[in-house]
């Protein structure tokens, strides 16, 4: 397991796009409020701190994967914990990936329904996304997923330029005084940022498919750096654009900021942006679903082709059990906690366990 055929190997520079596009998704649209509630005008510092944390974790993940001949998380789990507990851990990880997938789909559909099609059923929206993921993965697999993240990056990165338009209404005084947040406020701010930063754990699953493994760390770090940079910018812009109390009640801060962007040929740019955002979350969806099917293969020896249909159906049924925004938000928050555990805490433990196991074996 984990040994991929030569033809499916990915160029190492793609790691940069894989990590970056799997991190950037729905979070950047609305995270500002969540961090701001905790860390106030120092929210952007919290983003930078959690970005640094991700850099550290990426390093740990690469170290873990290089430590033994087991180079993905599923075979590592069986190696470290043995067959039974390993399978349980794998199931937990698959469950996390699947829930993350569902939360992304739900979050996006919820946004589309609020802004554009209030009379469209939630289940219909989710179904479209799931069908799209199946369509992409059915014939393509990881090579297609990598291609998707590469292309969508270039199709959407120009949006960054438009982020400067709202600065016309910026009040830079909102950033002052700097570093007023207490350590505990800052810590909570950092914690709240983590949901947006999630996605890099995909590295645990993609790693075996990459050529030139010694360079993975470098390119992954570049991807993470770019993510942190964008989220920091989005946070700073939201702080100066909205007044403090206003930001605390604005759900999709980035989107609301884009309501300022106006061209002579299109007055309401946000209506272009929302459909376009599908391209931003699409790599998220494809990568997470692909990772889920990899897990299915490792645990149940289920062919990825069939696993794809099985897990997609499962995701659909989880998704349609939600109807209200409040419950969807609660669900997304839950997934966020779960993700924090798996991606920000667990890598340190896994690394330690792998080291101990290795030493134990040598003796």
């Amino acid at each position, binding site marked *: 397991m984990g040994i991929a055929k030569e033809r499916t190997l990915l160029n190492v520079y793609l790691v940069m796009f894989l990590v970056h596009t799997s991190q950037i998704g729905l979070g950047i649209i609305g995270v500002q409020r969540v961090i701001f509630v905790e860390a106030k005008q120092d929210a952007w510092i919290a983003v930078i701190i959690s970005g640094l944390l991700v850099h550290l974790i990426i390093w740990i993940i690469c170290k873990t994967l290089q430590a033994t001949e087991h180079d993905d998380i599923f075979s590592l789990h069986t190696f470290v914990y043995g067959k039974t507990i390993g399978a349980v851990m794998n199931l937990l990880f698959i469950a996390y990936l699947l829930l993350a997938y569902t939360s992304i789909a739900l979050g996006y559909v919820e946004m589309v329904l609020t802004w554009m099609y209030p009379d469209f059923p939630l289940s219909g929206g989710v179904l479209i996304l799931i069908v799209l993921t199946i369509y992409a993965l059915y014939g393509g697999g990881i090579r297609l997923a990598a291609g998707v993240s590469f292309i969508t990056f270039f199709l959407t990165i120009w949006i960054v330029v438009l982020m400067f338009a709202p600065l016309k209404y910026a009040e830079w005084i*909102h950033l002052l005084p700097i570093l007023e947040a207490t350590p505990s406020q800052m810590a909570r701010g950092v914690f709240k940022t983590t949901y947006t930063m999630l996605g890099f754990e995909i590295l645990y699953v993609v790693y075996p498919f990459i050529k030139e493994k010694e360079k993975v760390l470098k390119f992954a770090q570049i991807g993470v750096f770019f993510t942190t940079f964008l989220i920091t910018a989005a946070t700073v812009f939201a702080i100066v654009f909205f007044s403090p109390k206003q930001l605390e009640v604005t759900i999709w801060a980035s989107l609301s900021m884009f309501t300022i962007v106006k061209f002579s040929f299109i007055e309401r740019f946000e209506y272009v942006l929302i459909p376009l955002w599908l391209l931003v979350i699409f790599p998220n969806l494809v990568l997470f679903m692909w990772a889920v099917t990899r897990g299915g293969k490792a645990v149940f020896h289920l062919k990825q082709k069939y696993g794809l249909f099985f897990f997609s159906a499962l995701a659909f049924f989880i998704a349609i059990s939600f109807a209200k925004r409040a419950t969807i938000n609660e669900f997304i928050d839950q997934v966020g906690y779960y993700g924090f555990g798996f991606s920000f805490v667990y890598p340190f433990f896994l690394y330690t366990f792998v080291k101990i196991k290795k030493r134990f074996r040598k003796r």
Partner: protein
Amino acid sequence: MKWWIVIWMMLAGCVEPRILEEQGIFTAVGFDKVGERYKASSVMLSFRSQRSSRSEVIQATNVTSKGTRQDLEAQTSHNLGSGQLRVVLYGKELAEKEGIFLFTDTFRRDANIGSLVYLAVAESSAEEIVKSKKLEDVPDIGTYLYRLIEKNLKSESLLAATLHEFIASYYDVGKDPILPYLSLQDGKPIIKYVALFHRDRFVGKIRLDESFYIKLLSKKYNAGMKNIIIPRKNIAPILLNKDELEKNIKFVLNEIRSDSKIKLVSAEPVPSFRIHVKMDAEILEISEKIKPFTKKNINMLEKAIEKQMKHEIDRLLKKLKKHNADPIGFGQIYDHSLRRYELTNQKWDERYKKAKIDVRVDINILRTGTID
């Protein structure tokens, strides 16, 4: 895999189509308070397949502002859409007695409405303005008002009018919103005044030329025009005709570029601010002949204009304090300059009245037009 695509395309048909001829598009809405009820007057633009579009005013009264919307729907065969809403007017009485935040909140929640919609206060009633027929060459009142406000924001003394700015200032502790104040002149809507607010309540109006100073103090200012009238005795040495020194002389400054800095000097016992305005300008017009513009003469003129402006700014600040309106955001500066201090609206209301504000103006006259 082709059937996937077929399913996908069929799903796209689920969303309700909107046919242009069946739509009635609001371009302006006005709210008034009539007794205990609210009256909404809105301009509805409808399109016809053959002829040009036409606008008509429809009105409804109800006990709640949301109820008026339903009553409006009952009065037309068109589907009402608010995506093209440009201007929202509030009658003075409504803005004064109830505040308008609750009305704007509805607009914020509705994703159909952009945050660049202009808000304005209407003298006497919003209904009168919406029903006015004199619109220059523009087909409907909504578009006329939109252009009127837009032009005044860009090149004249109006500081803010958008929904976004109103809401942002309303939420900002220590800053009050400001909106254009529309009045009718011979049946034509014009902007002569600027409406001052305390939170979301209309508290008074100032002339557009006074509002120039608010704009001057709040942000970088580019390419505006300003009349300034100074007593002749202040520049007596450079006058050609030295009689009647008690009279005034008028200057028109053009191409004004300015930058201002406001600093909190001390927070206790009363907040004390120092404002430093730097301004470059050209002289466009003088009401009488004066001596040639040598360096010395220009200096003298600059001093006199600075003195006059400082005087006018002081008078304006006094007026703002009297109305308890803080459109420049002194409270915001106060709040953000102090560490570990949380300003509340109540605290600022009290301190603002006692605040000491020291103004310094530096003018640089760059050119004097094509003649000396």
